[in-house]
């Protein structure tokens, strides 16, 4: 056997190994999904979506948690988007290489790695107590907005970096200033990437439980939040509460927690789907 043959075999082996690794991940996901779908699918219906939670699991629903999640989702996005995108644009387009910029960058990278429960403690002290928002949707959304800011900033920067420099130079060459260049050339060209980053960040935010528990969000609530100052609960907290309940002989809590997980996953998939759709649309549109 020549050396070349040996290398060919090695190459093939590595290919198979990589494939096995891929299938392992997918296989685990499939097991998880099918287990959840089998035990919860029959429960996902209009009644489940429109009923209040209950200690008698057969009657329980997720209405307040679902609405709470949508509230949190919307408000978090409204707070985090402008700040995150603006900060990303600043870093990439305005900030000059300086000690200050370097310092900010290191801090940003660190922020992205802070455990979410720490953000919860920060939110409890700043939003709930110091600013006196109380345990409200607003406090929750501000906390989660802080949590996803680093992600939005980083993905905005990546998207801006992908815009070729020749575009900027051409724009300057036509007499445009920095702002005009950003607004008319760079942002439209990078919006696909920015939107994808944003939606991924938001899908992370809706799965968070720990920071909301820390700021004192309700586990059980008998009403639908009407404004941003209302107390609230979200899907992951509702699921967490059900998973922790002592099981009934019929396995009712397993059924409803699985059903809750299905609803949460559907929202996440829907968001990711929108992200893919928007990215494709924007990429086609951009022509120079």
């Amino acid at each position: 056997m020549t050396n070349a043959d040996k290398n060919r075999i090695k190459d093939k082996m590595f290919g198979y190994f990589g494939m096995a690794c891929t299938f392992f991940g997918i296989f685990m996901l499939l097991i998880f999904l099918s287990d959840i779908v089998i035990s919860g699918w029959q429960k996902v219906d209009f009644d489940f979506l429109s009923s209040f939670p209950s200690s008698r699991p057969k009657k329980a629903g997720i209405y307040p948690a679902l609405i709470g999640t949508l509230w949190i989702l919307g408000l978090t996005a409204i707070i985090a988007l402008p700040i995150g995108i603006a900060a990303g644009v600043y870093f990439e387009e305005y900030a000059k290489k300086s000690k200050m910029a370097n310092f900010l960058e290191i801090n940003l990278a660190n922020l992205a790695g802070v455990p979410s429960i720490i953000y919860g403690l920060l939110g409890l002290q700043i939003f709930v107590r110091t600013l006196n928002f109380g345990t409200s949707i607003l406090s929750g959304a501000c906390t989660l907005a802080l949590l996803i800011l680093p992600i939005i900033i980083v993905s905005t920067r990546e998207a801006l970096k992908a815009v070729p420099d020749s575009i900027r130079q051409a724009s300057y060459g036509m007499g445009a200033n920095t702002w005009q260049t950003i607004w008319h050339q760079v942002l439209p060209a990078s919006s696909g990437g920015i939107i994808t980053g944003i939606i991924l960040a938001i899908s992370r935010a809706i799965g968070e439980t720990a920071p909301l528990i820390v700021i004192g969000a309700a586990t059980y609530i008998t009403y639908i939040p009407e404004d941003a100052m209302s107390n609230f609960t979200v899907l992951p907290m509702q699921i967490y509460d059900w998973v922790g309940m002592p099981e009934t002989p019929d396995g009712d809590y397993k059924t409803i927690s699985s059903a809750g997980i299905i609803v949460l996953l559907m929202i996440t998939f829907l968001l990711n789907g929108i992200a893919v759709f928007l990215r494709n649309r924007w990429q086609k549109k951009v022509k120079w």
Partner: protein
Amino acid sequence: MKKLILSAITLSTLFAYSCGGEDSKKEGESTELSGTIVIDGSSTVFPITKLVIEDFTAEHNKVKISAAAGGTGSGFKKLIRKEIGICGASRPIKESEAHECDSLGIKYQALEVGKDGLSIVVNPQNTWLTSITVAELKMIWEPAAEGKIKKWNQIRKEWPNEPINLHGAGHESGTFEYFTEVINGKKNACRTDYNASENDNQLVQGVSGDKYALGFFGYGYYETNKAKLKIVAVDNGKGAITPNEKTIMDGTYAPLSRPLFIYVTAEEAKKPESAAFVQFYLDNAPTLVKEAHYAALTADQYKAEAVKWDAFVKGLK
């Protein structure tokens, strides 16, 4: 980063301002009960409270109630900060907490709503342990046992030469405080090398999956997981007593049965919706406490609590 935080704060203050004004107008327009009640506190009392809330709102659907279960200690902290007016508690209020309430002028009433027996449980395959003395429990759980008591036969010679795997309530829970106080003689004094969790269901899982496990948690969780666990009788020198509804209620299952409370502040009791809620709590506790798998008090005891509550409410006027 400072800029970011600052702008986040400004933005959100604007939000708070624009949203806060609305809801105050809606209240108090009809004679029907309305308003908001916020409850926090013990995760042990939480299942009872949830049932009460559910039945109460079925009758008074204008009253908005939200409840969380952050633990007895954190509930009292919120009560002291006036963030909540009703707090579930699986132990009486501490002297230090009571003192803080006094100094802030917070008046409150403790109401006993039921009883919980802490149960000592092992795996159903455990054949050697049917009853245990309080002294043996202390030997296992005291701080000095940490890293030393590791095998079953260190406690009694005839028990197997196998590792003893411990599971118990976590530090934020009233269950932990209560257990350490009555078994180890000092609150919160406990070995730390055991599987600690605030989520009782995880403890059930831990014990039911391991032949050599020993754990403690609320009797309610044993009740609902009977098939997966074996309960151990506890001997405090007067013979071994197995916990059940009767022995917990009459107190013969000692020292591991404890009272469950709700604490209500005077400020809260002045709100008609909260007063009605607490009254409803006391009226329905006998059946709902059982539905939540705890032991109810006797009819006389409930009457005594109702009398206390009456006096407290009248005292406010």
